[in-house]
């Protein structure tokens, strides 16, 4: 037991070291951390009222309204912060749903092979070959748009990426000697999957989780942009861009849409960079440079 602990800690140590070598990934992690801190702290220390309608409509940025106000006189900065909380929350929880579906299915497909493998992997193929945006649109409009609906829809539609990564990993883990040993000592299938396969599948799951978040945020913001996601007055980065559907606003009131777009962009690029570093750090085989 002690020995395996030592092995784990040195693997962890190596992984951290490999990650720190990846300078862009460290920057990505730093940006995401700062962003989350800001989203958590700013509403506490500042007096932000994202939904307060004021007579000061369409104001350009100034001291009281850092990023100006929208057509209802609401403070764009406050909406940006609250919108960010919504977008990140939906991103995180929908990937949680994906993981809850994808991890067991991936393990079952890789462990049992045969019919389970064919059915699950074909299903994953199918989900990936259909234009998911199309079904997303239909689904959210059927289920009436809300944060919970978005989490559910993005979660249910997005599981195949987890299945793919987990399945590939499980295929190699199930052939390992310790799994064979466990089987000969009479450990049941469920026991082997929980005790041996699952712990060894954590790194692909972490990678899938990290890359799932930007993709979920992208889907959420696209749906909200189309007016099918988070509904006004509640703010999300996507529906803030929805305001820019006229050339007049695009050209004369850039503060209404550029900040929200940049926030999505910066979040996505940071999480992607972090995910890249994480993948390389957790998988020693893939060489960096």
């Amino acid at each position: 037991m002690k020995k395996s602990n030592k092995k784990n800690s040195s693997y962890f140590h190596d992984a951290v070291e490999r990650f720190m070598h990846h300078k862009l990934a460290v920057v990505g992690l730093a940006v995401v951390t700062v962003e989350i801190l800001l989203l958590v702290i700013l509403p506490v220390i500042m007096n932000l009222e994202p939904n307060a309608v004021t007579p000061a409509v369409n104001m350009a940025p100034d001291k009281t309204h850092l990023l100006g106000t929208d057509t209802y006189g609401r403070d764009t900065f406050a909406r940006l912060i609250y919108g960010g909380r919504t977008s990140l929350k939906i991103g995180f929880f929908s990937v949680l749903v994906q993981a809850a579906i994808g991890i067991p299915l991936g393990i079952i497909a890789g462990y049992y092979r045969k019919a389970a493998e064919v059915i699950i992997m074909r299903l994953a193929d199918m989900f990936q070959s259909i234009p998911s945006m199309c079904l997303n649109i239909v689904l959210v409009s059927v289920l009436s748009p809300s944060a919970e609906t978005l989490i559910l829809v993005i979660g249910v539609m997005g599981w195949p990426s987890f299945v793919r990564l987990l399945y590939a990993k499980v295929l190699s883990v199930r052939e390992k000697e310790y799994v064979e040993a466990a089987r000969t000592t009479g450990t049941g299938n469920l026991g082997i999957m929980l005790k041996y396969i699952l712990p060894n599948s954590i790194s692909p799951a972490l990678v899938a989780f990290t890359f799932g978040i930007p993709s979920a945020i992208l889907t959420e913001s696209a749906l909200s942009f189309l007016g099918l996601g988070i509904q006004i007055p509640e703010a999300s980065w996507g529906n803030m861009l929805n305001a820019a559907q006229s050339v007049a606003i695009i050209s004369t009131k850039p503060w209404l849409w550029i900040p929200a777009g940049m926030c999505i962009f910066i979040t996505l690029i940071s999480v992607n960079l972090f995910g890249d570093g994480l993948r390389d750090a957790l998988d020693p085989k893939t060489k960096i440079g």
Partner: protein
Amino acid sequence: MGRYILKRTLTAIVAFIGITIMTYCLASLMPGSPLDQLVQPESGISNAELAAIEHKMGLDQPIYIQYFFWLKNMFQGNFGVSYTQHRPVVELIAGRIGPTLLLSLSSMLLALFVAVPLGTAAGYRPYKGIDYASSVLAFVGQAAPNFFVALLLIYIFAVKLRLLPISGMYNSGSSGTAGEVLKHLILPCLALTFQHLGIFTRQMRNSMYECMSDDYVRTARAKGLNERTVLFKHTLRNALLPLITQAGLSLGALVGGAIITEQIFSWPGMGTLMLKAIKDRDYPLIMGITVIISVIVLIGNIVIDIIYRMLDPRIDDKV
């Protein structure tokens, strides 16, 4: 090859059936019955007449029977009648397929035409200027939502520079020449392609980088071939294979992205029609468009698989 296409078509048919089941289930989850739309409260249709209509439409049958009715009608080209526009769905969709295909295909081709040379150059000379440039493009591309790119493009090219049109496919009142369509196509195509361009370039760069250290490349050099032959004849073809797989995976996302892009640029394709149908809760139209878009993507995937198979002779023995 024939066997391969057959096998591939069969899997696509299975996927198609899965998609239709999902679509049908979704439609039946939608609030209200199709009859609500037909029967206005003031029309004074009796319950008996209503039951007759219900029977005629097969609505008194169990849901799986209804599904088969729907499927059968669909194969006969009958997708039903639009609730709001009172015209056959097939007719409404038919005129929209062309523009959507034009937008999606041109975006896919543009992404490939940029990614292949750029990714090849980057993978061939890694950790140099062009490689770093392609990495930046890849990360920026992956993180840039197409609707935000679309707005930025409108801001720069249409508002500030006044260079390009931002709405529709033709100038108003014009029947449209090819040049005119092309001019209208530029911005939506760029907006839609940007994300995939980044992903494709990165994929091409990585596979090129890996292929360059493959043994057969060393063999080719050991034969005394010059670098150009080594690169274009031996390496490129092998490096293209993962990119083709990636193009297949991205096809669905690209067509899905076209829905949003069409909406922003008022492109007269299936995407704008779809969003209008969603707004109107026009179920037959929604279902029809979903099915047609899925079929387009499935066919696209088969085509991509066949191209892959043509480039990689090993696949033949694997299936």
